[in-house]
Structure formats: C-alpha cells, structure tokens
C-alpha cells in the first residue's frame, strides 16, 4: 500500500503558484505588466541548481532529481556543475571547516543574482556534529536564503524548500542586489 504523502498538506501554505500569469492589464492579443514581474516569473521557473553534496543529504537529493519526485517539474531540469552558470547553490551535507573555503569560493564564482539553499541539519547548523572540525552551519561563511530541516530531509521537504526559493526569486525586486542593505549583508560576510 502506498504511503500517503503527509508533508505540508495541513493548512494554508504561504506559497502561491502563479497559474495565470502576473497581474497586469490585458486586452485582445496584448498584455501590459511590470518588467519586474515578468523577470521574476521567468527567473523563478528556470532556476539552475548547483548541487554541493557532501554526504547523505546528497543521496536524498538524487532521489529528488529522479523520476518519482522530479525536480525538473519546477524548471530545474538542468543541474549545472559549473558555478558561473548556476543560480541556486544547494549545500547538502556536513561541511567540515576545511571545506568552508571551498564552499565560499564556489559561492563567489556564481554570478549575481544567486541564491543559497541549506539542506539538512548539518548544512543549517552543524547538526549532530558538534565538534571542533565541523562548521556550525554554512551561514557562518555565506548568506543563506532557505533552510530545509531534517536529517536527512525527505524529497518532499527539498521540493518544499525549492518552492520557497522560487517564491523568493519571483518576489525579489530588481534593485535588491544594488541596495545598501544587500551590500551591508555581503560586507558582513567579507564579500567585497
């Protein structure tokens, strides 16, 4: 008997899928809307993820990419392994302190706009590895947009996190990356 999917089915979610296009003025054979909404819509449906998988969360991500859960449904068909082309850094698994400069370098190589998803307890907080050798959450070295809890999270949770990222991408203002607030955030991480 198949197990019913119990994840995130109770109550209203805060994610609203855009089914009928953005708001705007529509007439016969034309539609007028803001550039920001069109860009946000386009970006959110064509995110290229860069998987940075170091342990068991990476295995769970493989299931997420597979045909059953199928991350491709969300416009992420193309999983890239070159940071310069990708939009979303997915850090999955324990990041040891020696790995920290590598994660940071991968993040720096990505072009703006870029987003980061921390999958699982280890990437979010160090998890059970409360030890001298393990980084206590990747947010100590790079800014994180979405945290996915779990050890490891189920593929449904990864999809939920990915949809949260889509939501962020869709709603992001075009000028956000040029704002002082964003620059201060980057400075606090020692990036430019």
């Amino acid at each position, binding site marked *: 008997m198949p197990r019913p999917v119990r994840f995130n089915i109770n109550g209203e979610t805060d994610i609203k899928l855009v089914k009928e296009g953005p708001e705007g003025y529509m007439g016969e054979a034309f539609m007028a809307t803001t550039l920001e909404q069109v860009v946000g819509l386009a970006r959110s449906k064509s995110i290229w993820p860069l998987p940075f998988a170091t342990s068991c969360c990476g295995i769970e991500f493989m299931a997420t990419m597979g045909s059953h859960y199928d991350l491709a449904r969300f416009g992420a068909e193309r999983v890239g392994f070159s940071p310069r082309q990708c939009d979303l850094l997915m850090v999955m698994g324990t990041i040891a*302190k*020696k790995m920290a400069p590598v994660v940071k370098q991968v993040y720096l190589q990505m072009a703006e706009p870029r987003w980061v998803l921390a999958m699982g307890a280890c990437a979010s*907080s*160090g998890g059970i590895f*409360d*030890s*001298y*050798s*393990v980084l*206590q*959450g990747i947010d*100590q070295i790079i800014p994180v947009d979405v945290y996915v809890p779990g050890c490891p999270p189920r593929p449904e949770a990864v999809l939920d996190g990915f949809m949260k990222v889509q939501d962020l991408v869709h709603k992001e203002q075009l000028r956000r990356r040029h704002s002082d607030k964003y620059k201060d955030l980057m400075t606090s991480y020692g990036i430019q």
Partner: protein
Amino acid sequence: MTNDQIKQRLQEKFGEAVSNFTEPYGMLTFEAPKDFNLKVLQFLFDDAELRFRFLTDLQAVHYPNEKGRELAVVYHLHNLTDNVRIRFKVFTAIDTPDVYSATALYSSANWMERETYDFYGVNFVGHPNLKRILNVDEMDYFPMRKEYPLEEATRVDKDDDMFGR
C-alpha cells in the same frame, strides 16, 4: 619468538630503563623514559633476533590526572618476519612535550608524528616538517587534549536542553 624472549632481550640491553611490562590481550607492552625512545627503537630495529622493522602506528594519549607524565606517545611495532607485534610507550610532561622524532628510523613516522602533533601538541624534536596535517591551519589549540569541551565553541543556535546536555 615469545613475549618472554623479547622482554629478556630488552632487559639484558637496557636493564632498569625498560619497565612496566604487561601483556594486555597477549600483546607485549612496555615503557621507557622519553630520552631513551630512539635508543630502544633502534635496538628493536637492528637486533638480529627482534627485527621490529615496521611501524604500524604511532599516536598519543592524554592522561590529565597523571602529573608530570600527562602525554603518552605510543609506538606499535611489527616484526614482519615472525609476525609478532609489540607496543612501546614513552611518557612526557605536558609542559615540556618534547620527544625525539623517529622519522630517521621509520619514514612512515613522518605523517603520523604530524598527526600526533596536530591533535595532542607533542613536539617531535628533529622532525623535518612538523606542522598541522589534518586540521585547519588557523586552529590555535590541540583538540584531542582533555582540556577543551567536546562541543564546538562557535555554535550559537544549539539549545543544551534539546541536545541532552
């Protein structure tokens, strides 16, 4: 070659300097003053009967309650001809953790001594390249000494109640 024969050979050569002979699980274990470590290792290596020419492992142990001999450096030696293993320990005070390096005798001691230095801070005198091998270079303490909390000090979001502490 039995443990008794090895013990006899060592006592003939070094007399009272080698001591504390025990045989946990049948493996001969003994200790010597730390200044003697190279002499004992060289004898074990060169002797025509003993021929302990393979250094299986080298590590340290921290005994915080034993004043004046807090750090033990343990050598695991293997006679490949007769397939006999022994364990040899030297003790040193944690204030002066200087032990002569065995790299001239066993090349394999090079990385193992670096690891021991990395985790316990044993200063191997005469080592060609004594620097950290596994931990990050910025680390300013020796993490396996029993003087630091096991938990990572930089953590901010871990509630002690939830983690059972």
